[in-house]
């Protein structure tokens, strides 16, 4: 944004009749979202290109190494289609780089992420599709729960800044949010899984039950998921709470809050519609970033609890140097993050008309 538009915007908004302003704002928010969409397209393209470049920058010939390893694992020579696919994803030193890039994009457009080395010849796309629902279920729900819980508590603490509740809860959550997540998870596993034996030590469901939607299986999913879910919520809500507390402290002192109180509006309405709503905005930016961290968090959770999601898939791929799986997971994670951010941006525009002006 240049300085001149920043100075001019309020004047324009104030001069026109309300209806004109509203229409102009709508058009502006449309343009804003289009620009964001453009940004995310470029970001997606960068991730794809990064995935293309990294193996080609590495010393040696990764695709030859992968083909070698695959033939050793499977004990037979590979079908020509697999060869082409591997070389498309990891490079063939004899080919023209530009043609390789085109071929690579073509493969991705067909959702061809290559085949796993360790689980040859299972396509990477299939492995990812198996792990994805577990991660979405576990981390998606817990991220939302932690966000809601932390935000609500943050409003309570910030509304009564300086009271005993605030004086006790705020330093405590500071400490909790400084504790490394995987360590909390280890302690929880040790205390509730090993010492007390309340929860299973590893896995996402009872391996003796067939995967289905019958009640016994769902109960086992809940039982296996409870401890990992609790650890995620436990370590994540403190950060939300602190952010919301500080923002609430700032808005509570504003004149419009005092005015709303003076008008005799109910305390709950003043607290939520006036103070909290305006304090919420940075929380949403944070929420978008948290969705970006979903897989990062899931990575550690899933490793500690051996939970069968994307994170665990990536971890085992790293340990066994299963490059096709590693890169496939990276692409998937990047795309989900980008889509989540785009959605968050749209929500943000809807909540705060001012972002449209700035862009």
């Amino acid at each position, binding site marked *: *944004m240049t300085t001149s538009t920043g100075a001019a915007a309020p004047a324009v908004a104030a001069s026109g009749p309300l209806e004109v302003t509203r229409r102009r704002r709508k058009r502006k928010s449309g343009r804003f979202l289009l620009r964001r969409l453009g940004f995310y397209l470029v970001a997606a393209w960068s991730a794809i290109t990064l995935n293309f470049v990294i193996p080609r920058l*590495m010393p040696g010939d990764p695709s030859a190494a992968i083909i070698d390893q695959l033939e050793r694992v499977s004990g037979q020579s590979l079908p020509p289609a697999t060869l082409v696919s591997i070389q498309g994803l990891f490079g063939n030193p004899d080919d023209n780089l530009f043609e390789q890039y085109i071929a690579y994009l073509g493969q991705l457009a067909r959702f061809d992420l290559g085949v796993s080395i360790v689980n040859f010849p299972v396509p990477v796309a299939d492995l990812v599709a198996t792990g994805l629902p577990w991660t979405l279920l576990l981390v998606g729900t817990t991220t939302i729960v932690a966000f809601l819980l932390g935000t609500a508590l943050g409003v309570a603490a910030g509304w009564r800044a*300086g*009271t005993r509740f605030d004086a006790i809860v705020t330093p405590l959550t500071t400490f909790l949010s*400084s504790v*490394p997540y995987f360590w909390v998870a280890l302690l929880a596993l040790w205390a509730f899984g090993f010492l007390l034996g309340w929860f299973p*030590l590893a896995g996402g469901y009872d391996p003796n039950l067939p995967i289905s939607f019958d009640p016994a299986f769902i109960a086992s999913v809940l039982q296996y998921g409870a401890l990992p879910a609790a650890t995620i919520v436990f370590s994540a809500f403190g950060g939300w709470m602190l952010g919301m507390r500080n923002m609430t402290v700032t808005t509570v002192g504003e004149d419009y809050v005092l005015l709303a109180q003076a008008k005799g509006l109910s305390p709950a309405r003043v607290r939520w519609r006036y103070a909290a709503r305006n304090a919420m905005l940075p929380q949403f930016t944070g929420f978008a970033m948290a969705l970006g961290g979903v897989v990062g968090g899931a990575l550690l959770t899933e490793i500690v609890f051996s939970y069968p999601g994307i994170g665990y898939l990536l971890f085992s791929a790293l340990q066994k140097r299963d490059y096709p799986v*590693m890169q496939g997971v990276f692409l998937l994670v990047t795309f989900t993050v980008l889509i989540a951010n785009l959605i968050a941006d749209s929500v943000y525009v809807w909540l705060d008309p001012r972002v449209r002006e700035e862009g």
Partner: protein
Amino acid sequence: MKYNIFGNGKVTFGVIVLGFFVLLALFGPWFTSTVLGLDARANDISAISAPPSAEHPLGTTQFGQDVLAQVIEGARGSMFVGFLGAIVGTVISVLVGVPAGYFGGTTGNLLNFLTNLFLVMPVLPLIFVLAGYLQGTGLVMIAFIIGVFGWAGGARTLRAQAMSVSNRDFVQVMRMLGESNRRLIFTEVMPHLYGWIASMFLGGLIGAVMAEAGLAFLGVSDSSAISWGTMIQAAQQQSAVLRGLWWWFVPPGLCIALVGTAAALINFGVDELANPKLRSASRRVAKRTAAVRRAALAPEGA
């Protein structure tokens, strides 16, 4: 700006704890070897997986190494990565964020685009893919990776602040008087950002210590170095949790939590310095404003 940062109990506590760990990182290894007569790497065959005792105050690992000595030695590794990672991250966010906010226009848009790109890229999987190809990295490399991938949030904050400062009258006037951009940035804009930069550095310190621990836990680390992260990773790998060797993984995790808490507490003070509105959150002021508010609302209710 006459606000005494040390008048705040939280800040004093944070400074003491963080100072203690800095001293531990600097002199700890010397202290263990000469005063305690311990060696973090020595294997005591007579005490394997031993619980805390007089001889080994924090017990021993599965390999008979003294946990206390390892925690002290680990302070150096973790604090080193923490400081270096925070320095790298803060420097990049200043270099990108401040000009982005000050210049606006094409320069600003380009830098802002770069920031947004790093902000949305999922860092951990990317580091993973990189680490898969690059094997066996040292602590310096790890600190750099953490810094290089961790600056975007700070740059975004600095951009917003620099933008607001450079649009204020005093900067505009100086600009019209023909003052050079470089001088304006360093003498007029930057001093208003020191509070944000300091709090960014402290946040980066916590972030880097935690990130190192997280990466070590995932096996992306220097296997010869001792840090709190590699300790927890070794404990996890030897199934310390499932064998009840709590003294092996509890102390390093607690140390990380303490460093993080200390940095966060100092950050409260710095935040209040940079954002005066937060200062009103002190108890005395809260009581006073409540009294004023009651007085103001009283006729209304009656």
